[in-house]
C-alpha cells in the first residue's frame, strides 16, 4: 500500500521520528501517565527537532512538508501507546496552532505560532461547554464588547491542555444566538479571571484535561482570531481535518493492538502450544486485520483528497464514525486475547483499550456524526467551505 501514498522521503522521516520517539519518549511514558501531564521539556524537544510543525510554513518554524508526513507523524506517535501523550502534543500543535495558522493575523502568528512551533509557548483549543456537549451552535460563553476590549464570562470543559497551556483559543459568543454569533479569541493564561481545574479520566492519563472558567476576563480585541462572528465556520472548517486525524489515530491504534496481539500470540503458551495455533484466535486476527486494512485504505485516500484541496466534510465524518468504532472493537478483542494479562496495567492492552474508548465520543460523538451524515445523504444538505 505504502507505494501509492508514501515516498522514500516519507520513509526516512518515519525512521528518524521513530528513533527520536523511542529514545526520548518511550522511556518516559509510564511516568507521564502517572503524572497526568507531560513536561515542558518534551515540547521543546519536539520544537528543536522540527517535529512540532511538520506541515506548517517554514516561515514560522514549520517544516512545510506535505500531508502524508503528518500521516507518518501520527502513525509513529500512536506507537508510543499513550493517547494522553499524543493529545498533549496534538491539542497544541494540531488544534490550537491550526486555528492560529489558519485565521491568525501576522502579529498573532509571530506571537503564538512561531514560539508554538518551537515548543516554547503551548496552546489549547476550548470549544465544548458543560451544558452543550457536541452542540457547537449553542455555545454560551459570552464575550461582551467594552470599547476595544471584550469581557468574557463562561466555562469550557473537556479541554486538552486546559490547565497547563500558556493560552487558550476559545469559542465565544460575540453576537446573537445560533451559529452566526460565535467568534474565536486567544486568551492568555495569566489574564485575570481565568481559572482551570483538572479532570480525572478513564484513559488519556498523560494528558491534562481541564475545565476552564472565565470570570470577567478582559482581553483586547486584537486577540480576536479571524473575523468577528465567523467562529462557527472556522470551527467547522477545522473539524474535517480534526476528524480525519482522529480516524487515522483510530486506525493506528487498532493496528497497534493487532501487532501487539500477534507478537503475544507467538510467545504465549497454553495447553501445550502457542496460542497462535488456536483457530478461533487466528480467525479473529484475520477478521480484524481485514477490517483495519480496509479502514486504513479509506483514511489514506481521504488524506490524499484532503491534500488536494477537497472539502471532505462528509467523508471525514464517515471515516471517524467507522474507524473509532473499529478501534474500540479491535482493542477490546485484542485485550481479551491476552487473557488476564490483558487486564493488567503492566501489559500494553489495558491502556490501549482505555485510551481508544474516547474515540467514539471526542470530536463529535458517533451520534452527532450520524446526524451530519444523514443530513447530507438523506436530506441532501451540503456543507460548504467558507473560503
Amino acid at each position, binding site marked *: 500500500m505504502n507505494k501509492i501514498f508514501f515516498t522514500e522521503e516519507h520513509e526516512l522521516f518515519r525512521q528518524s521520528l521513530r528513533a527520536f520517539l523511542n529514545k526520548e519518549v518511550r522511556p518516559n511514558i509510564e511516568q507521564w501517565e502517572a503524572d497526568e501531564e507531560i513536561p515542558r521539556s518534551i515540547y521543546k524537544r519536539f520544537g528543536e527537532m522540527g517535529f512540532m510543525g511538520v506541515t506548517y510554513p517554514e516561515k514560522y518554524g514549520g517544516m512545510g512538508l506535505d500531508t502524508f508526513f503528518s500521516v507518518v507523524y501520527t502513525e509513529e506517535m500512536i506507537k508510543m501507546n499513550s493517547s494522553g501523550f499524543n493529545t498533549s502534543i496534538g491539542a497544541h500543535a494540531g488544534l490550537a496552532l491550526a486555528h492560529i495558522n489558519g485565521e491568525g493575523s501576522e502579529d498573532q502568528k509571530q506571537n503564538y505560532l512561531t514560539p508554538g512551533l518551537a515548543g516554547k509557548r503551548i496552546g489549547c483549543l476550548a470549544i465544548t461547554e458543560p451544558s452543550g456537549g457536541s452542540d457547537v451552535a449553542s455555545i454560551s460563553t459570552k464575550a461582551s464588547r467594552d470599547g476595544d476590549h471584550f469581557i468574557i464570562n463562561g466555562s469550557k470543559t473537556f479541554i486538552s491542555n486546559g490547565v497547563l497551556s500558556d493560552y487558550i483559543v476559545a469559542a465565544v459568543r460575540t453576537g446573537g444566538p445560533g451559529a452566526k454569533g460565535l467568534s474565536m479569541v486567544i486568551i492568555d493564561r495569566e489574564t485575570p479571571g481565568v481559572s482551570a481545574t483538572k479532570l480525572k479520566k478513564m484513559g488519556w492519563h498523560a494528558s491534562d484535561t481541564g475545565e476552564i472558567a472565565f470570570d470577567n476576563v478582559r482581553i483586547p480585541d486584537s486577540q480576536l482570531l479571524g473575523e468577528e462572528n465567523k467562529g462557527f465556520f472556522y470551527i467547522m472548517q477545522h473539524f474535517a481535518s480534526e476528524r480525519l486525524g482522529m480516524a487515522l489515530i483510530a486506525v493506528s491504534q487498532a493496528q497497534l493492538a493487532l501487532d501487539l496481539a500477534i507478537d503475544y500470540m507467538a510467545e504465549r503458551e497454553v495447553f501445550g502450544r502457542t496460542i*497462535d495455533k488456536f483457530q478461533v484466535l487466528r480467525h479473529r486476527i*484475520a*477478521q480484524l486485520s481485514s477490517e483495519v486494512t480496509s479502514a486504513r485504505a*479509506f483514511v489514506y485516500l481521504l488524506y490524499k*483528497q484532503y491534500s488536494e484541496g477537497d472539502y471532505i466534510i462528509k467523508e471525514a465524518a464517515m471515516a471517524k*464514525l467507522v474507524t473509532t468504532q473499529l478501534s474500540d472493537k479491535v482493542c477490546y478483542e485484542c485485550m481479551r486475547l491476552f487473557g488476564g494479562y490483558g487486564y493488567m496495567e503492566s501489559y500494553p492492552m489495558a491502556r490501549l483499550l482505555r485510551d481508544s474508548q474516547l474515540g467514539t465520543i471526542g470530536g463529535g460523538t458517533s451520534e452527532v*456524526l*450520524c446526524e451530519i451524515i444523514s443530513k447530507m*445523504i*438523506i436530506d441532501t444538505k451540503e456543507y460548504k467551505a467558507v473560503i
Partner: protein
Amino acid sequence: MNSRSGISYFTDEHDLFRQTFRDFLEKEVKPHIDEWEKAGELPRSIYKKFGEMGFFGMTHEEKYGGSAGDMWYNVIFDEELARMNSGGFSASIGAHPMLAMTHLNHEGTEEQKQRYLVPGIKGEKVGCLAITERFGGSDVQAIRTTAVKDGDDYILNGSKTFITNGVLSDFLIIVAKTAPELKAKGISLFIVDRESDGLSATALDKLGWRASDTGEIAMDNVRVPASNLLGHENHGFFYIMQHFVSERLAMANGGVATSAYAMEVTLKYMNEREAFGRKINKFQVLRHHIAQMASEIEMNRQFCYSLYDRYQNGDYLVKEASMAKLVCTQMADRVVTQCLQMFGGYGFMEEYPMARMFRDTRLGQIGGGTSEILCEIISKIMIDKEGYQAPN
C-alpha cells in the same frame, strides 16, 4: 455513479461506457429479469446482444474482437450488473467473461483462442469454469476428478458441483488431477465441449441466484483431445490461484455495489413511505442506520478501488483480495438485511426489490471461498508469515 471530485479512478471514457452500458441494461435486461428469474436461466439471445455491443470484449485484445480497455471497464461492468438486482443474471453473464474467458485469454493457445475466445467475445459460445466438487468444497487441492492420458487424448472422470452456467454453457473449463500423487502440483485445466460423450449435467435449485443455471456435472470417461489442455500440464493450481485474486476482488466490489444499490432503493422507499404521519426518512433511528451503512459502504468501496489500482500496477494481492472479499461480503449481508428491514412488510414481498437481493446476496460469503476459508488464508499470511508468493 462515482463522484469525480478529488481522487477518481475513472476517466470520461469510463463514465461514458458506464452510461452506455447502464442504458443498455435498462432497456434490454431489466424488463426481462423477472421472467429469467422464473425460468432459472438466461436466453442465448442476451449473450449475443452483449457480444454484439462488445460488452464481453472490453479488456480483450483487438485481434480477438475486444476493445483492449483497462481493468476499470470490468469494475464498471460488475457495478452496473449489480443494479439489475439479479445475482443470477450477474453470475451467468459474468461467469462467462470473468471466469471462463479469463483462463482462455491467459493460458489459451492461439488456436484455442480462435476456437473459444473469439466466439466467446461475440457471445456466440458461452463458457463456464468447473472447479468445486462435492467433497472438498473450497479445498482445491482435494479435488478427485482425474484426467488420464490415453494416446493423444485425456480421459476425464469425476464430478463437479455448484458450477454457474454448468448446464447451458457450450464449453467448460474443467479442473482435473493429471498427477494425483503431486497434490496441488498435479492439477491441470481442460477445455471440454458440451457435446462430449459421457458429459452430463443437472441444474440445482437454489436459495437465490435463480436466473442462473447452477449445475452439477458428471464426467464418465469423457474423452478430451490433448490440444484442449489449457496451459501447461500440472500448472493448473497456480493458474487458479492467480485468477482467484481478480475473482475475489470482483466479489468484494460486487458486495459493495450491491450494498450501494440496496441503499439507493431504500433511500427512495424511505422518501415515499409514510408512517405515523411523516416520511420514514425522518425517523432518527432509520437515519442513523443509513449514516452507518453509507459510511461502511464508502470505506469498503475505497478499499476495493485502492486494490484494483494496485492490481493494475502489478502488485501481488492474495492477502488483500481475500481481506476485501471477507469484509465486503459480510458488509453486504448486513446492509441488505438492514435495508430489507427498513421496508417493513414490503421487504418480505417479492414485488419489492429487497427480497430477491436478500436471497442473492447470501451467496457472497459462500462462493469463491467461504469466509472461513478466507480467514484461514489470511491468518496463515498474517500469523504464520506464509508468503503465498506469486509463481514465477
